[in-house]
């Protein structure tokens, strides 16, 4: 489903050039649950952003369904993200001005869908994460664990083929972390959704079928 070929990512800030990713080659099949581990600053987020088309690699190719993503226009990339990808961030990144239900509807806003259809699907997604009763709250009225579950609902509402989660349990206690992990595992097993997750937590990583270790921007086997 996804192929990374010789991906290099360099950051240039004034005089210093940081190479965040060295020559990454990676293939992820449909239905896989992959976790990425590695010390802080080794390039995990960068890798996830490159896979999630939020950032462009300096060199190398990113292929989705054998299609080279470098050739896509910004508009088509946005459409591709909307239809195929769902993001879960460590710091939730909910829009605090919007109610829970409206946050969850967000990906559907940028699609052709009637408002009743959007509402129905958002409610379903919230049901799945066990927060339907909180749909009219604002994110600031929820706990961290609840917010991350809202973020998961938002990530899955559009039925993405791939979910990218950057330390989704990083800001949560172990109980809430495990709840989030269970939801992700469920999604992977029942819906066959492909998931790539960055984590610091060995216990979480062990529950996934495949583990990629990064060190200093390079894969270690």
């Amino acid at each position: 489903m996804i192929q990374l070929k010789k991906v290099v990512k360099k950051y240039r800030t004034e005089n210093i050039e940081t190479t965040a990713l060295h020559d990454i080659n990676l293939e992820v099949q449909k239905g896989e649950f992959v976790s990425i581990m590695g010390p802080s600053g080794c390039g995990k987020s960068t890798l996830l952003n490159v896979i999630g088309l939020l950032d462009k690699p300096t060199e190398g190719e990113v292929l989705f369904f054998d299609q080279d993503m470098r050739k896509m226009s910004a508009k088509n990339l946005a459409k591709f993200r909307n239809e195929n990808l769902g993001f879960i961030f460590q710091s939730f990144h909910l829009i605090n001005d919007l109610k829970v239900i409206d946050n969850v509807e967000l990906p559907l806003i940028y699609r052709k869908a009637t408002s009743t259809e959007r509402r129905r699907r958002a409610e379903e997604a919230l049901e799945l994460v066990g927060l339907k009763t909180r749909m009219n709250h604002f994110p600031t009225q929820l706990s961290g664990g609840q917010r991350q579950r809202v973020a998961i609902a938002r990530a899955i509402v559009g039925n993405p083929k791939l979910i990218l989660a950057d330390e989704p349990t990083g800001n949560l206690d172990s109980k809430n972390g495990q709840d989030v992990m269970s939801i992700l595992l469920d999604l992977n097993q029942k819906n066959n959704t492909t998931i790539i997750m960055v984590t610091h937590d060995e216990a979480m990583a062990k529950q996934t079928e495949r583990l990629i270790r990064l060190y200093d921007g390079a894969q270690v086997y």
Partner: protein
Amino acid sequence: MIKHYLKTALKSFSRNRFVTFINIFGISFTLLVVTILFAFIDLEWGTDTPYEHKYETLTLNTMEMIAYEYDTIYHLDSNLINNTWTYDTLDYTTKKGEDIANALANPSFSIIKKYLSNVRQSDNKTFFTSNTYNIFLPAGKLSVSIKYTDGNYWDIFPYKLLEGRFYNEADIKNKEAVIVITQRLEKKYFGDQSGLNKTIRINGTKWTVIGIVQNPKKYISDGFVPYTHLPNHILNDISPLGRFTIVFLAKNKHQIKKIKSELKAIQATIEPFEDYTEFFFFPETFPEKFATNLMNSNAEDASKALQKLKARLSLFGLFFILLPLLNLLNINLSRVFERKSEIGIRKSFGANTTHIFYQFLFENILLSLAAGVIALGASYFVIHLINQSEVLDNSLYLNPTIIFWGLVASFVFGILFGVLPAIRLSKLNIVNALKN
């Protein structure tokens, strides 16, 4: 989608209540000032009844006459008196020289009759003069301004006749005691009854009201009567200077120039009066007249005064618009930058630049609309207050065109300062936008 944008906008507005208030207040206050200002400008510069021909007329109400005096030559003479020299000066006046005596005033009736009755370049012309009288009513003293005009007056100043008729050449020739009055005078004199065919006593004459005209926006006069009622000492005065205003009608600017040069030719033919040998007309178009009045300059520099006025007005206008603009720019920029991460989130879930553009456009239209409505209400209220207070003789009106353009302007500013920064942000790398 609109509903979603509306929710976001309203919440963001209410979260930033102060900023939203400043924003709306800034836009609406600017709009308010602009609409009121334009109501005043419109009053002066508009072409409402009876000023339909305002920009096709040339007004002559100033002329100058010059007498050259004899030069004084100083001559020193000396005498020896009691062993001391004393000096005494003698003046000799031998020739006409640089010293002049001049007089500046309106043209007299004799000038109109003798020299201006046949200005060929002009399509039509009218002359008039006015006077103020007190009339005594049960309610108290009323001061009324009466214009003495010829019959053409009604062609060049097409008042809206509500009842009756205007006076004509026959009325003027026969010195009929007829008067056309404004609605305002009718109301003051006759109350709620119609004044048509009734009489008004002004300055010892009983005038029959033959016509009632609508009040013009800009106050001009209360009543109009045939000029033949003017006293003989005015009509038979042989001095070139008097108290009349002559208004020439032209088709266009080009024709106005032609009339001006014809008047120049005519002024050279005016016969000497007493010691006065040279005569000058100072005809002015409406804008020139406005400028010379305002800039307190004389009629000779009319076009220069107009240029100066234009320069000053544009400077003033620029300053006036720039100041609130900078303010709004600042406020809007911070409002947008604060929402950087929202833009990042939206983009990672599929929004493209167009979506972001529409969202912020929508918000700014909401803001401007709110401001527009407030400004409209406030200007209506302020204008109402001004009219009620009767500090002006004139009535101010809200000009819908001005409000429309004011709104358009505030939309443009909204787009410039609210939407463009949002677009710039939306072009940012998403990863950077998401970083706090």
